[in-house]
């Protein structure tokens, strides 16, 4: 089974039924997989703060939401995380591609990578880092934890986890 199928299986098993996505090359496989699942309402967003608004609404409407996005989005969503997701105490699993780590071919991606963990730490967002494929074995527990504590939780997934960048 592909790692993308396994991740989405875990989301479905934990009852996640509303996922918004903003694409990243590294996340293409998992986004394709989300799109195939009838259990999940997949709603692509144009920007990640918009996606967090959709997730906040879906949560209040009775769904279990999640967002899939790139780490550059941390720069876009700090205010939304603080004044919406955290202030109203809402759960939000964030599956994040961690661009700018080892095997990264695009130098500019490193510029946000160096801030990513510091920003998440400053925001007091519980953060997990998937580097090896076996790290994803913790995903079901991370999802349970997120909906237990009603907080945004970050799952950083780097290039090594996804198997590099193909022919780039």
């Amino acid at each position: 089974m592909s790692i993308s199928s396994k991740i989405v299986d875990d989301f479905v098993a934990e009852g996640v039924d509303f996922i918004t996505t903003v694409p990243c090359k590294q996340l293409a496989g998992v986004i394709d997989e989300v799109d195939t699942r009838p259990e999940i309402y997949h709603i692509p967003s144009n920007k990640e703060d918009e996606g967090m608004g959709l997730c906040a609404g879906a949560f209040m409407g009775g769904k279990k939401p999640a967002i899939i996005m790139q780490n550059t989005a941390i720069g876009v969503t700090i205010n939304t995380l603080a004044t919406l997701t955290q202030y109203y105490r809402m759960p939000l699993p964030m599956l994040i591609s961690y661009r700018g780590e080892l095997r990264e071919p695009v130098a500019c991606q490193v510029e946000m990578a160096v801030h990513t963990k510091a920003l998440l730490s400053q925001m007091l967002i519980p953060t997990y880092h998937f580097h090896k494929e076996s790290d994803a074995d913790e995903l079901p527990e991370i999802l349970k934890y997120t909906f237990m504590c009603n907080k945004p939780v970050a799952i950083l997934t780097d290039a090594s986890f996804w198997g590099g960048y193909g022919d780039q």
Partner: protein
Amino acid sequence: MIRSEILREIAPILRDHLVVCNIGIPSQELHAIDDQPTNFYMLGTMGLASSIGLGVALAQPKPVIAIDGDGSVLTNMGTLPTIANNVANNFILMIIDNGSYGSTGDQPTYTGKKTSLAKVAEACGCERVIECQDVDTGRVLQEALDSGEMTIMVVKCDSGNAKMPVITMDPVIIRDRFMKSVQA
């Protein structure tokens, strides 16, 4: 009419429905005019009332009215294609378009100049878009509810704010009572 006069007039319609209200003075006005557990007041996060409202509408069957502003929609313009392409027939986006950023001192927005949010919404693919004048808001809102179709309302009105107290209710209480109203 200014926004608070419109809200006062449509309060009897809003009272029976789930309402997501825009940040700042709009929420303060609605809270002061007719606080209801079915109202979700945004205390921060400019621009996301329409996104939150759409999320609530997609998640459950009750009608949802998002009260937004021209300045806030301009902040989150990407919301309109998302709304158009994820049709929720229990969703009404009511944009109170007074051509100004009301909560920050009535600085003019571009909708008071060349930009038409109704045309933008139509170009984004929204199918039921109604621009109306302030005095017609109640009638158009009721028609939108009765239509059973997703509707984008652009309500043209005067710029100005009523002096209302800041909302001091805890955000978790606002969220909790709103969620209980959804489930009721």
